[in-house]
Every structure is written in structure tokens, then in C-alpha cells.
């Protein structure tokens, strides 16, 4: 059974069919790439899975359970986390507090009573967070305000924050946007290491070097519909994909 399954998913914005009858199935442990020209519905797909807005029609199932109508803040409990292309950190919180917010997850909170849950302090939280900070290379900056970090560090922190929720499925929305090739190389290592630890990843990305290097399977969207699916090698050879990317204008 697939970990994440989209069946005939559509999302309309007025008359625009941003996603139009999309079928996708992401297997446990895969790094699944989502490609397509600008405006092809990739980000809408990620937003639908993370619950930022409802489906117009179709269904999304995660681990065999339907996500329809599940409130956004509860999706985390099922094991879905994401990052954003335009970074959305808590800018006026310190680096480790950004992770603390995420780690302050419902699973953790359910263990505490009302007062411990809301009025509890920070004791113990920092030690739990340290391994993640080291994984992201941010341990030396843990007391810095998130807004003072460099662009690359902010991207790393956002990935770490998503990981702090201990997800089964991680949605990465253009994690390499604006990165130089050295940073892309580091990101690639991180993604592969996450896959090694059993996290399934849905990757939306334009940087081909990254997509072709880490994905097991790729789906290509155009005008909200899937035009191709296969391994990176198959996608590179696919004439329909070449036409979508190079046909009208060079992307």
C-alpha cells in the first residue's frame, strides 16, 4: 500500500484548474520528485496535502486513512511536515525556539496536563533539540534570532523545524531555491540521509541537478495534469516532458 495516495484530485480557483484530476502514489521510503513548469500545479498539490486549503474534488489518503476535512494543525499528528519556498520561520524567536515550537507537538503535549502543557518551561527541551541542530549544522547558532541567519542557514533551519515534528512524510517546496551549488550538494546529502532514516520525501524542485540526483521516481505536471511518471532516466528521455519545458518558452 502506498504511503500517500492522491485519487482524481482537483482544485479550482474560480475558473482556473490549478490541479485537474491528479493521481499520484508515493511509496514508503521513496524520494518522489514533482516537476513541471511554473504554474503547473506542483505547489497547489503540496498545499492540498498539507491542508492549507480544501480539495475541490477527489481524495487524499495517507497510510490508508483519508485526510479529507482533517484540520491543518492535526495533519502534523498523522506524520506530515513541510517546508516553504518562501521561508516561513518564526523570525523573532531564536533558532532553538523555532525547533521547540515544532517539537512541542500534540504527541508530546498529550503526555502533560493542562498546566504543564501551557505553562511548562523550557527545561529539558534544549537537550532533545541538540541532535537536530547538529544535523543541520546550526548548533553554534542556537541562540541567534532566526531572522538574523543567512539565507542558507534559514533554509536549513526550516528543514530542521519540519524534522522536529518527527514526520513520516516530508514535503519539500523548492528547498534549493536561491542556493549555490555547494549548498545544493549539502542539501542533497541531507535528503539522502533523511531517506536513509526512513522518511518519505515529496520534493518539488526546479534545480535538475538535485532532482535527478536524489529521486527514485518523478511525476511531471503541466496545466494541473500529470503528463509523465517514471525514473529520472525515463523522465529525461520523455519527449512530452521536453515539449512542456522547452515547447513554448525556455523555462
Amino acid at each position, binding site marked *: 500500500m502506498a504511503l500517500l495516495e492522491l485519487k482524481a484530485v482537483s482544485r479550482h480557483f474560480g475558473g482556473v484548474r490549478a490541479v485537474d484530476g491528479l493521481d499520484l502514489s508515493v511509496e514508503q521510503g521513496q524520494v518522489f520528485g514533482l516537476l513541471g513548469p511554473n504554474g503547473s500545479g506542483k505547489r497547489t498539490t503540496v498545499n492540498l496535502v*498539507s491542508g*492549507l486549503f480544501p480539495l475541490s474534488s477527489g481524495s487524499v489518503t495517507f497510510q490508508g486513512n483519508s485526510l479529507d476535512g482533517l484540520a*491543518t*494543525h*492535526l*495533519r*502534523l*499528528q498523522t506524520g506530515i*511536515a*513541510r517546508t*516553504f519556498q*518562501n521561508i*516561513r*520561520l*518564526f*523570525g*523573532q*524567536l531564536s533558532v532553538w*525556539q523555532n525547533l*521547540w*515550537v*515544532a517539537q*512541542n*507537538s*500534540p504527541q508530546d503535549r498529550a503526555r502533560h496536563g493542562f498546566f504543564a*502543557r*501551557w*505553562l*511548562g*518551561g*523550557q527545561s529539558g527541551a534544549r537537550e532533545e533539540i541538540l541532535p537536530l541542530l547538529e544535523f543541520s549544522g546550526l548548533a553554534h547558532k542556537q541562540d541567534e534570532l532566526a*531572522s538574523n541567519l543567512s539565507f542558507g542557514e534559514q533554509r536549513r533551519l526550516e528543514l530542521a*523545524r519540519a524534522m522536529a*515534528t518527527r514526520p513520516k512524510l516530508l514535503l519539500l517546496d523548492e528547498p534549493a531555491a536561491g542556493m549555490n551549488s555547494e549548498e545544493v550538494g549539502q542539501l542533497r546529502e541531507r535528503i539522502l540521509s533523511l531517506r536513509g532514516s526512513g522518511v518519505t520525501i515529496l520534493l518539488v524542485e526546479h534545480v535538475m541537478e538535485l532532482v535527478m540526483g536524489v529521486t527514485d521516481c518523478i511525476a511531471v505536471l503541466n496545466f494541473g495534469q500529470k503528463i509523465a511518471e517514471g525514473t529520472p532516466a525515463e523522465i529525461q528521455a520523455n519527449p512530452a516532458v521536453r515539449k512542456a519545458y522547452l515547447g513554448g518558452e525556455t523555462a
Partner: protein
Amino acid sequence: MLDFFQSLSDGVLFGSTYALIGIGFTLVFGVMHKLNLSYAAASVGGAYCGLLVLQVFAGAPPVVVFFCAFLAGGLLGWLVYLTCFHFIPISNPLATLMATVGMLLLIDEIIVHLTAGMPVGYPAMFDDVMLRMGEFTVRGDLLMVFAVSMLCMGGLLALLYKTRLGLATRAVSQQTVAALLCGIRVGQVNAMTFVITGLLGGIAGAMIGASVGTLSPLLTTPLTTKGLIVTVIGGLGSVPGAIIAGLLVGGFENVLQQYRGVTERDLYVMLLLFVFLVFRPGGLFAPKGGRD
């Protein structure tokens, strides 16, 4: 010169109540990006509710009255959240704003109706104490008002910066969408914000009653105006800004009352607001960006 320092110190001490009201406006604005115009009225309402204790236990000590005002303020804050925010489409900024205006008028009318529009006496503490340093004096009741207000602010800052609730509150105010995806129930955090600001408002209302000696429905409109001025001068969304601006406005208006009279002083407060809007429109501590 002595007059100047005397009125400045009295004004700054009383200004701590303005600071509490300003915090109430600014905290809700920071977290939800909405104005709750009923806040000052609810605070006065909370102070009136404190008086109900005296109906049940005549002769209850003032501190019990204050505590009941504190609790009633929190309850009113929650009711305002339910009626003006919870069931009203949050994406429509005007809907919630008008709902809070309606709530302001409703609370005002209820107070007028129940008290027949007459001012009622309010218990004070230490009102017979007077600290003297030569000619310069500090009124004991004002000192108590200042101390209680500062205590509440300290509690609020500890809550905001030391607890999970504060962390969640700040996360929601900085990045609502990301907070939602980090599993924070944004609606619950918003409701808590209203309860907490309501508690502060109840104590602010009680402190105003204690230092003036009476409560009157005529208080709500000027207090709303002062609260908003304090919020703007402090910087919308900034708690430290509201504290400093509250003390500043309190001292400023009292000095001008001394020299220009009670009928003129609010003109100068408006002028101060005008100066800030022209030269420092973001207020003393305009919060940095961090929200899209």
C-alpha cells in the same frame, strides 16, 4: 519646578493603568492582526463586576474586589472572543472590527442601565498613606496601583517569554501558517490571548477605580482613546512599547493638566499622537517584520 515633578510622578504612576490597557490592545493586534475596540469597555465592565462581591459580602476587603475584577475581566475577554471573533469570518477585517464596536456599545449600555448612569464609589487601599520627601509627596494608593500594574506586566512578560503558551503565542503572531503546520491550534491560542488580556484589563479597570475613587460609565470612551493612543505610540504589537508609552502618556497628560487645566490636557495628548504619527509612525518599538 516642584509642581512639575509632583504632577509628573503622579501621572506616571497612574499611567501604569494606561500601559495595561495598551498591552491589551497591542497583544491582540500582535497575535491576530485585529483591533478589539471593546477592550477598554470590557475592562471597566470587569471592574464593575468586582463590585458585585460587595453586594454578597458587604465589607469584603478591597483586595477581594480587585481579584474578582481580575477574574471577571478574563471571563469577559473570553466572551468577547466568542462573540466577536470565534463565530465571525476572521478573513473579513471589517466584520470583527464592527462586532467589537457593537460590543463596546453593548457593555457601555449595560453599565449605564444597571447603575442608572451614576458614578459608584470604588474601594481603595493605602489611600490614607502619604509618603513625604520634603514638599514632594507620593500618594500611597497611586503607589499601590503602580505596584499592582507592574506585577501584572511582569507576570505577562514571564508568561510570554518563559512558557510554552507564550512561545505558541509568539509563534502564531510571527507566522500563523507555519504555526498551524507545527501543530499549534491557532484558535485556542487566540482565545487564550483574549482571556489573558481580559485578566489584565479587569485589574486595570479596578486600579483606575481605586485611584480615582469612583467608577463611571463615562470612563469607557476616554479609556478606549487613551488605550489606542498608547498602542500606536508604543508601536502596534509591541508589549514593551505599550508599557513605556503608557507611562509616558500618563506623565505627559498630568503635567499638562497641571499647567493648562483638565479641559485642555487631552488636546495635547492628541498632539503628542500627531507628532508620533508624523515623525515616528511605527511607534517607539515598531516590531520588525517576520510575518508575510
